[in-house]
């Protein structure tokens, strides 16, 4: 018995190719290939659903503190906390600053001292060109108000513009500002809890387009 080409089974599993009469006859009689196809179909189904699991919100730093305490782990971020309120034990966060300041590190740039309270590496989405990426830092410039600083690499000049969004990973996206270059520095609304919107997304937008356009790079903030 000649089994179908393994590539062919994969394409059948991805629903790209209809099974021909030869396939059907073979699959009817060959348990091995039938099982293989079924397993590959299951993987393909899970793979399609996995898109929903790629930008999961991080675990609260307060949970890490409890794990570290219970397992006797060093907690090297602790001494760097300077003057920021600790997050309440059960993750109830009063202010955006508190939400992301937990593992704050201090970065000295020029004469200004800015505290990077969270950052994210932005990864290329399927519509972006190869090599596209980005980096986001959430900084507190000292007054307690937070700004999002974005650097893009490997992105073409946009046909319209790029828009920066905060996303809760489920349903809500908040537009923060736009750029047509490779950098942006935008304010984060003071009443926004970053912990609830941990995903940073940069989309390509048509001029005048209100709704979210096409995702180009995306990543999850980490304290």
């Amino acid at each position, binding site marked *: 018995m000649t089994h179908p080409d393994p590539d062919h089974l*994969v*394409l059948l599993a991805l629903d790209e190719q209809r099974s021909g009469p030869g396939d059907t006859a073979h699959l009817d009689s060959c348990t091995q290939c039938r099982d293989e196809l079924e397993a590959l179909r299951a*993987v393909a189904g899970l793979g399609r659903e*996995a898109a*929903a699991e790629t930008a999961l*919100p991080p*675990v609260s730093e307060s949970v890490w503190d409890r794990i570290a305490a219970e*397992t006797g*782990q060093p907690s090297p971020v602790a001494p760097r906390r300077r003057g920021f309120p600790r997050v309440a034990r059960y993750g109830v966060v009063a202010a955006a600053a508190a939400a992301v300041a937990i593992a704050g590190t201090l970065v000295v740039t020029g004469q200004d001292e800015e505290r990077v309270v969270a950052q994210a590496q932005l990864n290329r989405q399927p519509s972006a060109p190869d090599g596209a990426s980005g980096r986001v830092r959430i900084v507190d410039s000292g007054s307690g108000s937070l700004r999002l600083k974005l650097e893009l690499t490997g992105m073409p000049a946009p046909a319209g513009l790029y828009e920066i969004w905060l996303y809760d990973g489920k349903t809500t996206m908040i537009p923060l500002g736009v750029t047509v270059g490779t950098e942006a520095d935008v304010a984060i609304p003071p009443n926004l809890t970053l912990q609830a919107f941990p995903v940073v997304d940069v989309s390509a937008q048509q001029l005048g387009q209100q709704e979210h356009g096409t995702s180009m790079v995306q*990543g999850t903030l980490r304290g």
Partner: protein
Amino acid sequence: MPDDAAAADELARRFADGEPEALRAVFDRHGPAVQRLVRASLRDQADVDDVVQATFVSAWNGRHSYDPDKAGLLAWLLGITRRRIVDLLRARGRRQRDTDAAAATAPAEAPAAESPERVVDRLIVADGLRRLPDAQREVLELAFYADLSHPQIAERTGLPLGTVKSHLRRGMRKLRSELGGVPEEVTDDASRSRSPRPARP
């Protein structure tokens, strides 16, 4: 960020060997997936935090029983997570027989179709994708997320059709073997770890 399978394997071994920094690295890498699974069963954020905490504490205390050759680290962790969820629900059930427990255990963001098994499999596939070599990952993401056919993927990536097909085949095989590695029964060392806080006043 796509990460290299070798680095992920290395992390699993460092964890099993009990290197102090490994727990934090595992928490950073897999904490979001653990939390995601807990949120499929528990609605209350304090409960979610407790189970996430109990999972990582159990995992650390039971790290000697983790065999990197038998299961992926995430699969092992998610097995522990499910047991800690059950612990919490049982403890809750003993104390508050009826209404409270029922309310507390109502699926949070989970429609009926979203069984914990399905969520676990999906998280493992998502993690498996991250571990694939870049070319395979990219081709599979275009097939899964952008729903492109293999000729469209070839056009998008500039890869020959045959290469696209072989990336699809290899990537699918690897994802399948990751799923095959999900242990039915995972072992950890629950006896040495604290159970999640059973009930709140």
